[in-house]
């Protein structure tokens, strides 16, 4: 049942692509071309060869809509009938090109290394030549005539495909599943056929379709030059060549085959584009109707030291089934100098919350909130132009992947200095001086020298520190660090967490630390928000006792150096709900040991259980943790 669902979804995707203007046009054009290629010779073969001796080299008339050629053939019929040969030869040449290219491109992964190098270099050299030159070169070798030209165009296409196939298969061959297959003794040829080719097929098909358009053009060119199709056969290129002789008498004779070539080429190319759109990442983006954002309430009763106020934050994405809401009503406040940890598993919405706060969630996602204020400014209603300065100097972000957070082509110091130049209007030299100073602040050794280095010369930990340094170029009130240490080792992780803590005490900067590691968060922050399925389920002091069953389960599942080695590890059965299928009641109900009927019907709201401790649970622990309810623990899925 689910399999057909997948098929349907894929079918729907193709159908949607057909309904776009480009897709529809491409498909109908291709249909016309194919229909002509099949039917025209059957229907009009005789008419195309009929010699009308009364009308030789005439202009268009009622009898001959596009005129006649030097022998009295009707040009319209000849153009229509020529469709089959032109398209057939182009497709044939493409097939030759693709197959040769595939063989050349995949040989290096089969051959021993020296031979593989030789093939690769040969392909590289061939790629360097202009295509048309290769065609002419090949047609000299294979001789003038239809077959020679097919081979010439085919082999001229091959190097580009070889290169493409080589690059694509190299990237697939680097994946673990290929390594795993090799370890289990799968031979090279089987590896290629079973694992590599199926995974590079889609982009190759797209390129082959576009390549067919190119070879149609190339072939027409050859015939036009007289080294392609020879009389008495004719294709569009030859018709074009013949028509050109009499262009002053009958322009239509040259224009008609020309238009035919263009239209058929267009059909191939556009179909390729459409296919690429469907199977690639370029899926159509549906616009989301913006929901009326409730106007931010006047910031009344705001304490002076509040940096960030978030009330009922929602982030929604358009999806096939309407809306997916990965963040469903998150509320919290951050005060100056406070460190807050946001904990949750992947898919809990913790990163999106951080991105939404820093206005980094892009369309088609929609961010709504009853109140979202940073440093007293409503973030959702203030125009972006006015916010840029504020966010640029007062808010710093540190992301998970230190490899991608800097521009690899520019020196670290300059990238930092740019912030000061942009937002504080400092001159170049002054800005650079400040950059060096900030790098020193984040404890980059030999900051002066390091500032002149490129990101790749920095280690992962240093890059993260430089990222914090970049945040310090302004006067940050808040640093949002999204899994800043996940890619780092424990010793470097400790360095970075210490740096964050130090920055906080020295500058009174508030910190939001987003992490999946509850130990890291409780080490660094005094308060943590535990997120589950897009909601904050518990907001508690790090030193406090968790009362939500999920927080407790998460804590129990966390391994540390004190875990009992002889007992099996605690696990949370089941898995979180998909963001587009969140149940009506409590999202954790299916995995909860204390679940009751009420949990499945009503979603609990985040309520204060004691000062500074909020829990969203109908049965927070220490009250109704009946042992009989525990039996349901094992009722989860495989996970």
């Amino acid at each position, binding site marked *: 049942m*689910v399999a057909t669902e997948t098929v349907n979804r894929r079918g729907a995707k193709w159908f949607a692509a057909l309904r776009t203007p480009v897709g529809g046009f491409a498909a109908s054009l291709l249909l016309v071309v194919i229909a002509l290629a099949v039917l025209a010779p059957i229907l009009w073969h005789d008419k195309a060869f009929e010699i009308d001796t009364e009308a030789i080299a005439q202009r268009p008339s009622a009898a001959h809509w596009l005129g006649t050629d030097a022998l009295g053939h009707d040009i319209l019929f000849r153009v229509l009938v020529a469709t089959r040969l032109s398209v057939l030869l182009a497709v044939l040449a493409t097939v030759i090109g693709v197959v040769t290219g595939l063989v050349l491109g995949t040989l290096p992964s089969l051959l021993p290394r020296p031979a593989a190098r030789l093939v690769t270099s040969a392909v590289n050299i061939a790629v360097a030549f202009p295509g048309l030159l290769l065609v002419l070169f090949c047609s000299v070798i294979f001789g003038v005539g239809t077959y020679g030209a097919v081979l010439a165009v085919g082999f001229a296409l091959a190097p580009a495909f070889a290169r493409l196939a080589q690059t694509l298969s190299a990237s697939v061959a680097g*994946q*673990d*599943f290929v*390594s*795993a*297959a*090799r*370890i*289990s*003794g*799968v031979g090279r040829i089987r590896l290629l056929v*079973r*694992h590599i080719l*199926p*995974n590079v097929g889609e982009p190759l098909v797209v390129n082959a379709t576009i390549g067919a358009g190119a070879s149609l053009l190339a072939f027409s060119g050859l015939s036009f030059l007289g080294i392609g199709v020879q009389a008495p056969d004719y294709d569009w290129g030859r018709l074009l060549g013949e028509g050109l002789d009499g262009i002053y008498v009958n322009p239509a004779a040259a224009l008609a085959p020309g238009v035919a070539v263009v239209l058929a080429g267009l059909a191939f190319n556009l179909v390729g584009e459409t296919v690429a759109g469907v199977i690639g990442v370029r899926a159509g983006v549906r616009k989301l109707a913006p929901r009326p954002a409730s106007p931010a309430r006047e910031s009344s009763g705001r304490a002076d030291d509040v940096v960030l106020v978030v009330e009922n934050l929602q982030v929604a994405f358009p999806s096939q089934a309407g809306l997916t809401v990965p963040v469903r009503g998150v509320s919290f406040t951050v005060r100056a100098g406070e460190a807050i940890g946001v904990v949750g*598993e992947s898919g809990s919405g913790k990163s999106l919350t951080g991105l939404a706060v820093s206005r980094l969630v892009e369309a088609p996602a929609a961010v709504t909130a009853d109140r979202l204020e940073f440093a007293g400014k409503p973030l959702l209603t203030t125009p972006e132009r006015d916010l840029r300065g504020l966010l640029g100097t007062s808010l710093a972000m540190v992301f998970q992947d230190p490899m991608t957070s800097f521009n690899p082509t520019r020196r670290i110091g300059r990238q930092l200095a740019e912030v000061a130049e942009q937002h504080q209007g400092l001159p170049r030299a002054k800005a650079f001086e400040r950059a060096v100073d900030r790098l020193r602040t984040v*404890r980059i*050794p030999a900051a002066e020298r390091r500032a002149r280095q490129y990101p790749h010369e920095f*280690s*992962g*930990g*240093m890059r993260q520190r430089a990222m914090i340094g970049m945040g310090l170029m302004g006067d940050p009130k808040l640093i949002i660090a999204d899994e800043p240490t996940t890619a780092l*080792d*424990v*010793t*470097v*992780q*400790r*360095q970075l967490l*210490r740096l964050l*803590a130090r920055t906080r005490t020295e500058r009174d900067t508030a910190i939001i630390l987003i992490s*999946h*590691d*509850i*130990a*890291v968060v*409780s*080490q*660094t922050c005094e308060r943590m928000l535990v997120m589950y399925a897009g909601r904050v389920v518990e907001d508690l002091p*790090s030193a406090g006792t968790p009362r939500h069953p999920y927080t407790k*389960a*998460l*804590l129990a*599942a*966390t*391994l*540390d*150096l*004190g*875990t009992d*080695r002889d007992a*099996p*590890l*605690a*696990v*949370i059965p089941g*898995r979180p709900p998909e963001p587009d299928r969140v149940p009506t009641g409590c999202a954790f109900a299916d995995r909860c040991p204390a679940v009751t009927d009420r949990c499945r019907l009503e979603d609990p709201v985040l309520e204060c259980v004691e000062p500074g401790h909020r829990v969203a649970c109908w049965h927070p622990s220490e009250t109704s943790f009946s042992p009989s309810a525990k039996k349901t623990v094992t009722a989860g899925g*495989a*996970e």
Partner: protein
Amino acid sequence: MTDLVFDAVSVRYGGRRGLTAVDRVGLTVSSGQVVGLVGESGSGKSTLARAAVGLSPVSAGRVLLGGVDVRKLRRRPPLQMVFQDPYSSLDPRMSIGESITEAIPRGVFSGRAARREEVARLLELVNLDPGRAGHLPGRLSGGQRQRVALARALAGRPEVLIADEITSALDVSVQGAVLNLVRDVQRRLGLSMLFISHNLAVIRYLSDIVAVMYLGRIVEVGPAEQVLTDPQHPYTRDLLAAAPSAHTSLFDTRADGATADAEPADPHHPPAGCRYHTRCPVGPLVRADREICLQVDPTEDAAHRRHSAACHFSEDESRRLTIPGGASTP
């Protein structure tokens, strides 16, 4: 039965200015034992594992499986590996049943039905519904994919299993289930296992022997409980102290000012003498009299020291630290 022995294995990439990722490493995974290999990224632990299965080139030394060089073994040695990334370790175009079937040695099961039965048995072994054999990996969660990867490795009837960071891409709640499963399967099948992780807590939970790797060398190896409660090498102590735990403070009392922000050394130009001296809190950076660390490589006579620690002063230091170093078990 089958021991996996790394005999002075070196792995070198590139030419003269290349990189020695693994430098004369000796390590034994005895039959039925779990050896945990811990170290920071870039220390060469994955490279060492990949050398065993022929995925990285051994430039010196040998990897022996049951006394035979793995390079001379037949095509399917009884050695399998599970990888880190559950999203790239399964072919997205092959059903999980096909992926597992492919790893079953040819000739062991004749006939489609027998193979299908074996796949079902393996899926059950890793607590997955055998009815899922026809599913594509795209419909499985990360934890489920790791189970499939484990089932595929077990399909090759291995005697030695290498697990390379198999839980580091998983959520905490899933990690526990996978570790329980790995331990259960290892014990039930009596597998020898090389378990690689950067997470000491995970290593501690699973391993009988712990080996600590730094910059291409093994700096300390010994029984798990001993290494973790009485570490001999300063790097091991540092790893233990840095392990995040809700019970320890971010700023511990021990003064480590001079080395707190030290950078890992450049693996292209490993430091002379002791490779750890650029970061060592008990080395020449802190104590000027310890010049020997700058000149003499402590791995030369490591075999004589406790836990084969590659540290000139391991005995002095562990005597000095009356409290067992790092995070002791609370």
